């Protein structure tokens, strides 16, 4: 699956303001609401459920990456966004190191297979050091959008 199929470009936050995990999650969910991809009235509940999910086990998987994600009633299509922080965020990561890139994913309940496909597509790119490095160095929304586009094109060429 292509990243651009579920990543909402207008909701990408190149310079996160918050420095805590919870602030960051709220900022990204609010950004999806502002982009019109989730209802404003859903923001509080989605934020709460994402934080609950983090409490069950951090999605900070190391190498400066966190992938907070939940399935939620109000979502009909897989919807995601990306946030970058130059300062780094404490996500209680596996490697205890700060997180610089946050990839947030909201999925509907009725299609777990497609949720796994979206996660696969994220991780296939995140495994590559070059992708992680470029993402971390991106300072503008446009740079991140370009990165997503290039990653999708490279994936298509490699026939994955």
């Amino acid at each position: 699956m292509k990243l651009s199929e579920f990543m909402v470009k207008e909701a990408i936050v190149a310079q996160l303001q918050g420095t805590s995990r919870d602030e960051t999650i709220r900022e990204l969910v609010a950004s999806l609401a502002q982009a019109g991809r989730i209802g404003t009235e859903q923001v509080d509940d989605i934020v709460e459920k994402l934080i609950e999910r983090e409490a069950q086990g951090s999605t900070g998987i190391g190498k400066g990456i966190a992938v907070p994600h939940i399935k939620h009633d109000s979502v009909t299509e897989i919807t995601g966004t990306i946030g970058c922080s130059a300062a780094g965020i404490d996500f209680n990561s596996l490697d205890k190191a700060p997180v610089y890139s946050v990839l947030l994913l909201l999925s509907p309940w009725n299609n777990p297979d497609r949720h796994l496909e979206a996660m696969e597509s994220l991780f296939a790119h995140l495994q590559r050091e070059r992708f992680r490095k470029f993402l971390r160095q991106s300072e503008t929304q446009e740079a991140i959008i370009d990165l997503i586009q290039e990653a999708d094109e490279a994936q298509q060429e490699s026939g994955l």
Partner: protein
Amino acid sequence: MQPSPTQDCNTAERTVEIRNPEGLHMRPAMQFVDCANLYRSKVTVWKDSQSVDGKSIMQVTTLIAIQGTQLTIRASGPDAEAAVAALAEVIESVNNETSD
């Protein structure tokens, strides 16, 4: 007496099926990786012809192990048997978990 090299090169293998409707999503995948990292053996997970490092969450998440997927867990090293048994048990407990 030095142990012979072959004693350090046990391999073990088991095929399991993902029966959880949610598939092997990230939380159970992390349980799997955490468990794999408790062992000295190298752990690989195979889905058809694709194989990934069973100790890496980034790699295990790329398997797209949906409900009905057959995964082969292969370990090689001094504690290969124990690793495979423990990892098969993790998958079994994921299969029995109620959907949330």
